[in-house]
C-alpha cells in the first residue's frame, strides 16, 4: 500500500522546477508510504546515438573507475553523474551493448532504468530523507513519477521499491495489491521477462513490458492488463513523452487528477496536488475505473 504522484509539465518554462514540485508532492505522501521512496524523472534527453542508464550500488562505490573502464572497454564517450547511491551513465553506444557489459563485468550493480531521458532513483527510508539525499530540489525535467511505499507482502528493500522499469524509458508505480501475481510471475519468466523480486508491482511492470514486446501499443497493453491482472490497483506509467493512468474495475484505491494550463498532475490524495502552483484554478477530477488515460506528445 502506498502513495503515488505524477506531474507532467505542459509549460516548459517550469522544467527547472520539476524536482522541487515533485519533492513537495512526495513528502505529502509520507504517511501512506513510510518504508521507502522512489522517483522516475524524465530529463536531459540524450541523442539517438547514445543511451542513458541509472545504476545503483549497495554501499560506497568507485564510480570514476567504472567510468574509465567503460569508456576504455566500450570505446565510447561515457559521462557519469552521481546521485547519492545511484549514478546516471550516458554512453555513446547502443543500450544493449552497455547492458551486456554491465551484466558481465559489473554484476554487483543494479540497472534501475534504461532509455534516453528516464532516470530512476529508489531508496529505503522516509520520503523527506530521500528528497534531501538526492537533492531533488536541484533537479530539472519535463515530467516525473514518484512513489512512497508501505510494504504489504514483500520485503522493504531498494529492489522492492517502485518505480519498476518495464523497458526503454518506461516505468510503473502502483498503489494497491494484486491477487494473482504469483502465477503470472512464473508465466512471464517463461516468456523470458526478467523478474527479480517477489513484489506484485514488479509483475505488473513485467506484464506491460511483455505486452509491448509482443507489439501492443501502450493503450492496448493497459487494456489487456485489465483482463489479466487481478486485484486492486491504481497504476501510473511513465513514458518518454508523458504518462498514463489506469484504475482497476472495482476502483477502491484512490486516484485524483488535476490540470492547469501549465501542468497535469496525479496523486493518491489531493493534498499532494494542493502544493502545486496555480492549483486554485485547476480542474480536478477522478479517473474512471477500467479506463486508460494518457497525456503527453
Amino acid at each position, binding site marked *: 500500500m502506498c502513495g503515488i504522484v505524477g506531474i507532467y509539465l505542459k509549460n516548459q518554462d517550469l522544467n527547472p522546477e520539476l524536482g522541487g514540485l515533485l519533492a513537495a508532492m512526495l513528502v505529502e505522501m509520507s504517511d501512506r508510504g513510510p518504508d521507502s521512496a522512489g522517483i522516475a524523472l524524465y530529463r536531459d534527453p540524450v541523442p539517438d546515438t547514445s543511451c542513458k542508464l541509472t545504476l545503483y550500488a549497495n554501499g560506497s562505490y568507485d564510480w570514476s573507475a567504472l567510468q574509465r573502464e567503460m569508456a576504455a572497454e566500450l570505446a565510447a564517450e561515457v559521462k557519469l553523474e552521481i546521485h547519492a547511491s545511484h549514478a546516471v551513465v550516458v554512453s555513446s553506444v547502443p543500450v544493449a551493448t552497455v547492458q551486456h557489459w554491465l551484466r558481465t563485468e559489473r554484476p554487483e550493480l543494479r540497472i534501475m532504468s534504461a532509455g534516453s531521458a528516464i532516470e530512476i532513483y529508489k531508496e529505503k527510508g522516509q520520503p523527506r530523507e530521500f528528497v534531501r539525499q538526492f537533492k531533488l530540489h536541484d533537479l530539472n525535467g519535463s515530467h516525473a513519477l514518484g512513489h512512497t511505499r508501505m510494504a504489504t507482502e514483500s520485503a522493504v528493500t531498494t529492489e522492492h521499491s517502485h518505480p519498476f522499469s518495464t523497458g526503454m524509458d518506461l516505468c510503473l508505480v502502483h498503489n494497491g495489491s494484486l491477487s494473482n501475481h504469483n502465477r503470472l510471475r512464473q508465466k512471464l519468466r517463461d516468456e523470458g521477462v526478467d523478474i527479480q523480486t517477489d513484489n506484485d508491482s514488479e509483475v505488473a511492470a513485467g506484464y506491460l513490458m511483455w505486452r509491448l514486446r509482443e507489439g501492443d501499443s501502450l493503450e492496448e497493453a493497459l487494456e489487456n492488463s485489465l483482463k489479466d491482472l487481478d486485484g486492486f490497483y491504481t497504476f501510473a506509467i511513465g513514458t518518454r513523452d508523458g504518462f498514463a493512468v489506469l484504475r482497476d474495475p472495482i*476502483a*477502491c484505491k*484512490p486516484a*485524483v487528477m488535476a490540470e492547469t494550463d501549465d501542468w497535469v498532475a496525479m496523486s493518491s490524495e*489531493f*493534498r*499532494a496536488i494542493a502544493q502545486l502552483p496555480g492549483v486554485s484554478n485547476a480542474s*480536478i477530477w477522478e479517473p474512471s*475505473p477500467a479506463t486508460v488515460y494518457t497525456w503527453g506528445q
Partner: protein
Amino acid sequence: MTAFDLSSDTVRALNQHLHQTPSGELSVTNPGGRHCIACGIDSPVDVSIDGHVGYYCAGMNKDAQVTIRGNAGPGVAENIMSGTVRVQGNASQYAGASGQGGTLIIDGDASARCGISMKGVDIVVAGSVGHMSAFLAQKGRLVVCGDAGDFLGDSIYEACIYVRGKVGELGADCIEKEMTTEHVKSLRQLLAATGIDASADEFRRYGSARKLYNFNIDHADAY
C-alpha cells in the same frame, strides 16, 4: 466568528475546539486537502471551509452545518447522524458512507460508492454519481440530478434512489419503481430544502426488488 488557518493551526486544534464549542460560527481557511477536518462535531455550530478537503471531512457529524467551498476527498460526512454537510465542489468516493441521518448535499459530482451502506441519511447530488452508488443501502434517500454509474443500488435494502439522468447497469436486486404522487411530493420537499433547482417530476425511482431478503436457490446467481 472564530477563524482557523490550517496553514498555521493544526487540524487537531481545530477539532478539539469544535468538540468544545456549543454553538456559533467558525471559518476554516487553507485546508490544503488535509484529512479529518471538522469530524466528530456534536453541537449546532456553523463551519465554513474555504478550499479543498481530504478524507473524512465532517465524519460522524451531529447537529452541525458544515460547508466545504471546494472539493471533498473520500468519505465526506461518513456516518453522519444529523445536521447538514454541503460540498460545493465534487466529492470523492464513499460520500456519506453509512450515514444514519441528516443531509449531505453535493453541488458537483460524487464519485464511486456514493451512499454506500447508508442507514437513513438523505444525500442530494446536483451532478452525477459514480459506480456502485448506494451499494448495500439500507435506509434513507439518494437523489441524483445527473447520471448514475453502473451497479446502482447493488444489494439494496429499503433505501430509496431518485435519478433524473441516465442510469448505467443496475445492481443486484435493484429495480425501477413507480413514482407515486407521495414520492414526488417528498422529493420536491427535499430538493427545495437543499436549494437545488430541479423538478421532482423529472426523476425516476429505484429500490429493492426484495428477492434477496431470504435466501432462495433460484436467485443464487444474484449473490
